[in-house]
Each structure stands twice: as structure tokens, then as C-alpha cells.
């Protein structure tokens, strides 16, 4: 009580100097609270945006792949997922799963004729099943024709709409580079470059879209429906042959004679090719999985890992989104670093001020020591002064931060367009207030107070009672 009384009155006596320190601490606290809230909100919004638009909660990809999947990589195609249907069936049986969407990235050429001349327009695209893609990612953005004929919120058209959709930016690029743009409904020929040559497939442009999020990405990415994709890249074949035929083939691997012997194999003799069904393979290299609850991502991924027969492995949203997931973390690190620097400066100024205070109070401290105060009393006195001042200033800083968060909370914070696009896919950043930054700020201020007091206290406790006697 005595210590606290002395601390409060000493602070009041040096109010000009201490108010300056208090203002610095309050500013630092404001930065911690507002900065942490901003950073954690940006991180949460970035996560939500990436999950909502690129990856889902995690991406399944072929077990044979040596690379992580990335929705942004178009130059290193992943191996195909062998049995998409089996994976879909497994996902359908998982209670945590809300929706999933098989998709692939690739590039192709759009062949069109203008004025009797043929033009090959390059484009990169996501090959998607429009239904499942819309369930997971909500489509591609604004389009007069909807996402493959699906108006937002409306049910899927009875007849599947097949073809390609391109971004309006892409269309502008065509105009700029080729002198013309494409029109919705226009017939085109798609050229798919495969190992066996170039496949040509007649198709049409079913829509032009304007991305609503991540235009920095989706301006460049177009869409092709999965059936068209399978045709362009020849992802079609026959249903599995009878097991007896497979075993006959396996037995024939001994040499040429054995192959010819297959002719007399009963399995081959009984094979009725006309009864085998042709089926379109998906060509999907990734399956984005969306969960009902984001927090169950690890358990859902563990379930997949426990079923190796599916032939897929899982990459969490942050691993799959690479650079984009790092932006928010980088921003958070920058804010923490800036805050730490501010507090370092505050700590140095505060320490310097306390040392000046100690020097000015040499006689007072010496007197206290002479009349019976031990070193721990002097130590406690300076610590109390530091804590009282800084915690009071921290409360002021927190109050300002709370007001600023409340003011920004309703409409969110407007960010520069470029930052907004890369961080959260565009738009303003809603702030999510939480107790964490306030607790962090208090702990940080307490820590800095103690730290900044160490040296001045050492100077103060080294003052002997002789100083009181020598004071004239």
C-alpha cells in the first residue's frame, strides 16, 4: 500500500514526463490491439477466401504425385486420380463432408474463324463438373448466362450445358491481341494438345464471366465443363474387362508364344466386346473437399489417409494454396515486428526516463535506505511506478483500439485494391474483435515494464544511505 501510494504520487509529481511515456505506451498498446485484431481478421478472412474460392478445406490428389497440388499451377499437371468415383463414394459417406468438386487445370486452344481466316486463341482453364464446382465454390462470378446455364441460386438446368466460359478480361485480351473478341453462344473448336497429337472438338462459348473475387487470378482462368474436357483430351475408354481376361493377359506375359496362346484362352473366347460400355473418364487431378466444420479438417484428412486403396492423398488448404496462404501470415509477422519495434523504442525511452528519475531522486532513495528501507522496497517502488503508469496507459490504448475496432467493424476496413485482391480476394476486410489481442497487449506491456525497469532498479538499489548524508 505504501509502495503504491508513493508510486502514484511520484508519477503525479512528474506528470509531464510521465504523460509522454504514457502516451507512447498507449500508442504501442493501440498498435498491438488494433494490429493484432487486423492481422488475425486478415488471416481468418484470407483462409475463408482461399477455402471458398480455390481449395475447399483440403484437396485430394493422386498418391502418385510428387508435387503438392496447387490451383494456381498450370505448367506442371498433376497425375490423374485413377478412380474418382470411388473417392466420391468415400467422401459421400463421410459425415464431416459438405460438398466436393473434382477438377483439373489445363490449357488448350480455341480455334475460331474471322474473315475466312482461322485463329488459335490460347486459354488456360479449370475443367469442372459445374454442379459440384458450384456447390463447393459458388461458380465463377457474375455472368449473364450464369455458371454453365445455372443462374445464381437457381437449380441446375435439365440438359447439361457443355462448352467453355471465359473471363471478360480474357476476352479483352483477345480483342487487344487478335483484334476481335468472342461472343456468348459462339461456336468454337477446342484444340487439346495431347501426347498423341492435337485433338479437335467442336464446342461453344456458353458464357463470359466477371470474377467477383480474386480477379488477380480468375481474370486469367477460364472454365470448361468436365465432359467437354474428357472429349478434348480423350479421357474416354471402356469399362474394366472381365477378371478372367485380366488374368489371361497376366499369364501371357511369359513371351510371344503365350500371347498367341491367348486366342485359345476361354476368357478371351467368351469376351463379348459389344457388351462392354464406353465410359467417359473424368480426367480430374484434384478433388476439392468442403467440410461442414473447418475445425474437423485434420480428422477428415486422417480418414482419407486411412484408406490407401483410394489412391489419393490430401493437402490442407494452406499447403495447397502456397503463396496466397503466406500473405496473411507475412502481414501478421510484419505487424508483430512493427509492434515489437515500437515497444522496443518505448522500452528504451522509458528506461532512459527512469534512469533520469533515479538520478534526480538519489537523495530521496538514499534517505529511504538510511531510515530503514531495504533494497526490495526500492525495487518494488520503481516496479510499481512502471506498472501503474504503463498499465494505465495500456488501458487508454486499449480503449482507443476498442473504439477504432468498433467503428471499423460495421463496414470493415477498406484496403488498397491490390492488397485486398491478393489477401482476401477483394472487398473490405471485416474486423473480428476478440479478447486475445487485449490480453496480449496487457501481457506485453507488463513484460516491457518489468524489462525496462531492470536497469534503472539496479542503479537505484546501488544508491547507498551515504548519498542521503552527503546531500547538501
Amino acid at each position, binding site marked *: 500500500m505504501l509502495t503504491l501510494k508513493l508510486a502514484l504520487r511520484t508519477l503525479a509529481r512528474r506528470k509531464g514526463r510521465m504523460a509522454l511515456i504514457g502516451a507512447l505506451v498507449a500508442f504501442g498498446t493501440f498498435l498491438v490491439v488494433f494490429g493484432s485484431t487486423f492481422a488475425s481478421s486478415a488471416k481468418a478472412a484470407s483462409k475463408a477466401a482461399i477455402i471458398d474460392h480455390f481449395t475447399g478445406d483440403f484437396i485430394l490428389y493422386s498418391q502418385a504425385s510428387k508435387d503438392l497440388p496447387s490451383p494456381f499451377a498450370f505448367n506442371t499437371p498433376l497425375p490423374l486420380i485413377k478412380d474418382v468415383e470411388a473417392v466420391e463414394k468415400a467422401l459421400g459417406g463421410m459425415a464431416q463432408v459438405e460438398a466436393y468438386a473434382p477438377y483439373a487445370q489445363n490449357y488448350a486452344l480455341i480455334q475460331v474463324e474471322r474473315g475466312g481466316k482461322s485463329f488459335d486463341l490460347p486459354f488456360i482453364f479449370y475443367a469442372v463438373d459445374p454442379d459440384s464446382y458450384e456447390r463447393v465454390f459458388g461458380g465463377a462470378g457474375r455472368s449473364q448466362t450464369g455458371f454453365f446455364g445455372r443462374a445464381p441460386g437457381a437449380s441446375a438446368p435439365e440438359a447439361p450445358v457443355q462448352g467453355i466460359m471465359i473471363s471478360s478480361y480474357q476476352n479483352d485480351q483477345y480483342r487487344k491481341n487478335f483484334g476481335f473478341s468472342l461472343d456468348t453462344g459462339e461456336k468454337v473448336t477446342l484444340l487439346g494438345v495431347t501426347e498423341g497429337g492435337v485433338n479437335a472438338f467442336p464446342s461453344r462459348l456458353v458464357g463470359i464471366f466477371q470474377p467477383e473475387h480474386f480477379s488477380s487470378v480468375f481474370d486469367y482462368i477460364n472454365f470448361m465443363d468436365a465432359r467437354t474436357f474428357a472429349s478434348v483430351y480423350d479421357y474416354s475408354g471402356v469399362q474394366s474387362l472381365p477378371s478372367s481376361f485380366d488374368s489371361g493377359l497376366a499369364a501371357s506375359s511369359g513371351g510371344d508364344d503365350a500371347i498367341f496362346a491367348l486366342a485359345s484362352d476361354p476368357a478371351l473366347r467368351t469376351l463379348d466386346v459389344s457388351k462392354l460400355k464406353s465410359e467417359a473418364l473424368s480426367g480430374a487431378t484434384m478433388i476439392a473437399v468442403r467440410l461442414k466444420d473447418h475445425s474437423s479438417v485434420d480428422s477428415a484428412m486422417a480418414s482419407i489417409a486411412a484408406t490407401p486403396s483410394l489412391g489419393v492423398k490430401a493437402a490442407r488448404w494452406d499447403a495447397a494454396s502456397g503463396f496466397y496462404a503466406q500473405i496473411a501470415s507475412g502481414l501478421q509477422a510484419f505487424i508483430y515486428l512493427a509492434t515489437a519495434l515500437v515497444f522496443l523504442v518505448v522500452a528504451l525511452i522509458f528506461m532512459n526516463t527512469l534512469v533520469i528519475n533515479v538520478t534526480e531522486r538519489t537523495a530521496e532513495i538514499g534517505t529511504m535506505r*538510511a531510515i530503514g528501507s531495504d*533494497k526490495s522496497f526500492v525495487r518494488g517502488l520503481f516496479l510499481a511506478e512502471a506498472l501503474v503508469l504503463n498499465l494505465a496507459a495500456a488501458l487508454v490504448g486499449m480503449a482507443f483500439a476498442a473504439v477504432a475496432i468498433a467503428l471499423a467493424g460495421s463496414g470493415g476496413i477498406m484496403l488498397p485494391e491490390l492488397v485486398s485482391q491478393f489477401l482476401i480476394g477483394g472487398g473490405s476486410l471485416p474486423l473480428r474483435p476478440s479478447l486475445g489481442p487485449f490480453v496480449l497487449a496487457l501481457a506485453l506491456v507488463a513484460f516491457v515494464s518489468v524489462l525496462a525497469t531492470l536497469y534503472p532498479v539496479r542503479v537505484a538499489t546501488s544508491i547507498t544511505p551515504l548519498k542521503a*548524508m552527503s546531500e547538501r
Partner: protein
Amino acid sequence: MPVVELEGVKKNYMLGQTKVEALRGINLEIEKGDFLAIAGPSGAGKSTMLNLFGCIDLPTEGSVRIDGTEVASLSDKELTRYRREKIGFIFQSFNLIPVLNVYENIEFPLLLKRDLSRAERSRLVTRLVEEVGLGDRLKNKPYELSGGQRQRVAIARALVTRPLIVLADEPTANLDSQTGLRIVELMRRINEEEKTTFIFSTHDQHIMREARRVVSILDGLVVGDGKAA
């Protein structure tokens, strides 16, 4: 038994590269209840002697015993406690704590002892405040008091723990002669009433006359010991 015993006490200081012999072999005994002045010119060693009596400095050589305890054998913590319980200090510049008022300054040593109730502390402080004639100044801060009043507060603070010895280093040096005399008279009255040992340093002849015993020192040696002229 003497409350203060000095035996062959020497005290040297280093002043830069120069060795200063502040005390050069002092033998002295001070009895309980004494009212003693240490007299001598500036630099004679008066303050050094008081520092040794007050356990805030240790001799370079020789023995200092306060109330039978060899001071040099005590740790810093023990010396602090010893000062708190046995010794009261009155400083030349009063050395009141600027942020505390009169009442609180006097109460301060009692709060350090931590073994007294608020009521007990109040009783002790109030009695001394009346004794030094500052009953109407309890709420005043030191800067609101005259020099004489501040020294009265310092006297009350030094006495409030009922110490064995009260040390006063030139207690009248910053006061005018009339006020200084009144302060010494006050100290003497308390000495007579409470039987508290008072040791004060001075080079003021008028003040010296109030002492029952005067120890004169010069160049670190005792050159006289007796009643003031």
C-alpha cells in the same frame, strides 16, 4: 554499557588517485541518554564519524560497536534492519520525502517496520506531531513548510520508532540562528524527557553550548572531549 564504542577506528577514502585519511585512529565511548556534539571545522571528519555511528558506512580499520553489536559483522540486510530499529536520522537538508505530507513522512519509518496497527501508528505520530508543534500542519507537503518546520518534521520522523540513538548531521546548518537554536532546544527537551541518545555534528558555537558533551575533532583525530565552554 555504552551505546556507541569506537576503538582504533580509521577510515580512508580514495578521492580520485589520492588517499584521504578521514579518521586516523578514533577511540570513543558514548553513553545512553547522552546529548553529544561532535565539533570541528569542515573536513575534520564529523560526518564520517556520524556515518559510522549510523551504520551506513564501515571503518577501514578498527571496531565500531553499536549497542554492543560489531557493525562490521552485519550483512547489508542486517544493517538496514539495525538502522530501522535502533537509529534515527536528522539530515542537514531535512531529506523529507517530497510526495508525502507531514503526517505521512513521520509515519514512514513505522510503515517500514510493518508490525504496528494503524491505530498504534496514529498514536505515535500524533504524539510526536504535538511534541514538535506541527499539529496544524499534518496535511502539508514539505515544500509548503519553512526550513524550521521541515527540520521539526525530520526530528519527529527520527524519533517515531523510539530509536536508541538519534544522529543529526549539522541539523541547523540550513536554518537561521534563532530557528537553529529552537531546533536544538527541542532536541534537548526530547533527550531529557525520553532519555534518547542524541549525537549531532556542528561547528556553530551557539549550538555547541546546548550539548552536555562536546567531542572536538580535527584532521581525523579527537582533540577534545568534555563539556562545552
